């Protein structure tokens, strides 16, 4: 199964978004949170992101979903074409959409495409 890492400036935001994505998709999709700095402040930790990638990597690839700013730059430092890819998508909607696709067994490019669809799907 494709792994998903949610990267946010906020530990709480990343953790809760991961919880939500796991809860909505209903299967045991590997979704990990990497939020905040090493000392729990607002920011990004490359070590947390690297550890989260390792945790969810089952060999089918990992999708990184950053919130903004330094999260995006940190994700870009760790991307690896074909195995660790970044989704430029709305954080919550993209996470849920990616988790549902990963739970259905979609490959990495399919999970990325599902996340990207979240950008254009209207709520109303």
């Amino acid at each position, binding site marked *: 199964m494709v792994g998903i890492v949610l990267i946010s400036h906020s530990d709480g935001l990343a953790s809760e978004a991961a919880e939500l994505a796991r809860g909505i998709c209903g299967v045991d999709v590997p979704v990990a949170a990497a939020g905040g700095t090493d000392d729990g*402040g*607002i920011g*990004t930790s*490359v070590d947390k992101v690297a550890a989260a990638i390792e945790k969810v990597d089952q060999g089918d690839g990992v999708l990184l979903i950053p919130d*903004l*700013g*330094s999260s995006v*730059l*940190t994700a870009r*430092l760790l991307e690896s074409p074909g195995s660790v890819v970044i989704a430029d998508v709305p954080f919550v909607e993209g996470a849920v959409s990616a988790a549902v696709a990963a739970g259905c067994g979609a490959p990495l490019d399919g999970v990325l495409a599902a996340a990207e669809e979240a950008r254009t799907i209207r709520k109303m």
Partner: protein
Amino acid sequence: MDTRFFTTWMEEATAAVRAGRDHLTRLDAAIGDADHGTNLDRGFTAVAEALAARPPVTPGGVLVLAGSTLIRKVGGASGPLYGIAFREMGKSLGEATEVSAAELAAALEAGLAGIRRLGGAEEGDKTMVDALAPAVRALALAVQEGGTPEDALEAAAAAAEEGAKATIPLQARKGRASYLGPRSIGHEDPGAASTALLLAALRTAASR
């Protein structure tokens, strides 16, 4: 320029960032999230500690260790950006134990390329690129004209300072300040200001 020179540069940079911390944070408070000075101070303090704990034996080693430490310790967008810049500079210098002004100019250009690749900023976007790109050009020109390394680094530092001040009338197109749109006009970009500090520290290292 040897390993000692590059270690001195990092020590001078640590001192300059410490002294400029509150100023950088004030600039960031105007158009960002008011953490640039604190973040960079934390990062360079960790750089100084890492260099003291495991002293590298080449100029490239100094810069790669500094870059990797900044990536891990800064916590804001400037961490990956400065981190990649120093790592690219270090890689460009390879295993050499003595670096010429021309090699330093090429390394600084590699650092700028790393920042542009990672952050996607062009000159005029109101970012650190607006200070670094003119510094790279000034250094290359001074080296080409055959000046002393001191003169060349003086020219680079002056160009960075001028570039940073020239961000004041610009509207930000990258980074958090870009969310402010036209309200970002009238403030110096904190990333450009810290780049000017780092180039000034390089000039100071050359005068030691």
